[in-house]
């Protein structure tokens, strides 16, 4: 039988997967994989600052991710450097800053692996509450932004001419993504966050006929991956976060065997 901590892990994991799926579809459509990575890497700086300032790590991660998203938005508008260069700079500088900050705090022993690869088996009730509240906010806002986001994804200028407030929508989406990254960190760890955006969305692409269908299927694929991964982790005594990603990869590969729907 599943133990209590396994049940908590499953509940937390499914909550995260349900929100990662729909956001992941946009990460795939808008080619924001590297953006997701950057947010994820900056999460470590959030963890470090959280310990330093003695605030809840998840809250600190949210704030730092949000700041990085805002910073990136304004740097991109300046168009001095190409986007991927900016992302590269922010991604690795925040990750390194986080590692260096942690090294300075000698009296503190932080289990780095738990943050890099996730610690889903250690989630408590308060974590679950935080995950579901954030997920609900993020999903609600995503539904509100859905149509303008689709329009921007197709063609920014066309959307702008037709009255979409492109900058506002993009900025809101980046901030929501930061929120989602913060709750995902606990489950798969910051090095694997992007995979939970991309794998479920890519897996169900061929089965989807509409953007909405793809978002819902991606959420379901995420839930299947989390459940499968946790079961595997329990069965074979493997680390939970990476097991979830392996399950997602297997699901992706399996679904490629089906013919594409037009």
């Amino acid at each position: 039988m599943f133990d209590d901590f396994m049940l908590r892990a499953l509940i937390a994991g499914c909550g995260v997967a349900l929100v990662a799926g729909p956001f992941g579809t946009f990460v795939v459509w808008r080619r924001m994989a590297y953006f997701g990575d950057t947010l994820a890497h900056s999460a470590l700086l959030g963890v470090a600052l959280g310990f330093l300032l003695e605030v809840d790590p998840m809250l600190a991660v949210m704030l730092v991710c949000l700041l990085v998203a805002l910073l990136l938005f304004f740097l991109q508008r300046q168009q001095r450097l190409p986007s991927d260069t900016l992302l590269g700079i922010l991604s690795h500088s925040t990750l390194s800053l986080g590692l260096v900050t942690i090294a300075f705090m000698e009296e503190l022993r932080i289990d780095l692996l738990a943050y890099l690869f996730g610690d889903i088996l250690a989630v408590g009730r308060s974590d679950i509450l935080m995950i579901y509240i954030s997920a609900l906010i993020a999903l609600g806002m995503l539904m509100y932004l859905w149509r303008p986001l689709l329009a921007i994804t197709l063609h920014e200028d066309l959307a702008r001419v037709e009255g979409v407030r492109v900058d506002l929508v993009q900025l809101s989406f980046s901030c929501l993504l930061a929120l989602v990254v913060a709750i995902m960190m606990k489950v798969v760890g910051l090095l694997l966050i992007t995979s939970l955006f991309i794998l479920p969305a890519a897996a169900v692409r061929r089965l989807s006929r509409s953007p909405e269908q793809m978002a819902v299927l991606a959420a379901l694929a995420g839930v299947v991956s989390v459940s499968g991964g946790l079961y595997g982790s329990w069965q074979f005594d493997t680390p939970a976060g990476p097991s979830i990603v392996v399950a997602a990869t297997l699901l992706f590969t399996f679904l490629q065997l089906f013919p594409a729907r037009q």
Partner: protein
Amino acid sequence: MADPLLVLNDICLVRNRRHILENVSCHINPAEILTLIGPNGAGKTSLLKVALGLMKADSGKVVRSENLRIGYMPQKLIIDRTFPLSVARFMRLTGHYSEMQMQQALDEVGAGRMLNASLANLSGGELQRVLLGRALLRRPQLLVLDEPVQGVDVQGQVELFKLIGRLRDNFGCAVLMVSHDLHLVMAATDRVICLNQHICCTGTPAAVQRDEQFLKLFGPAILPHLAVYSHDVQHQHGSCPNQGCSCPLGEGGADV
């Protein structure tokens, strides 16, 4: 004559210390087809973007008539294979239209069968038609088309230009388009602006073709192509704001 829909006054656009647009003034009248031509990098697309309000000019003024409804067709719509979107969904992405309205708009542009097709599966010409049909849904007074025949074969280009002319006749909308497919566009337009950072010359297609600036820009080799297609000319001169320009339109003054 009715007031122009859109007036650009002395537009200057500078990027990286280079003039993209230099003192460009022009206007577009209701139900007129105005084509911007010019070599690559002449600032054609930039001028459209300034007119649409997508780019802010460094100096100069853009005046639109009140509540101007614009239908825009961008230069290139790259549809990611990972993006499952039907034509119908695409058409009502930023507005609310009934199935019938969408079907009518598509029928109008000869893409009636495509309502339920997947956007990613359309050919270049089909996609251009769908984009045009989508622009029509907004009941535009001004259609702004950025290289509407790009990536379409010659036969398809002729048909598309015919279609654009027909849409103007049916809907009474003005058309502002960019093109560098010179020989075909000449037959499909009322007025031409030849742009190379500044306005080299402007006027009817026939007048522009005789213009020295025009020939300097495109080379005399272009002429035989043009003669075949150009249509009858009602004489109507524009003026050339460019100093030192020796074009025959210089004395006109009716336009610009």
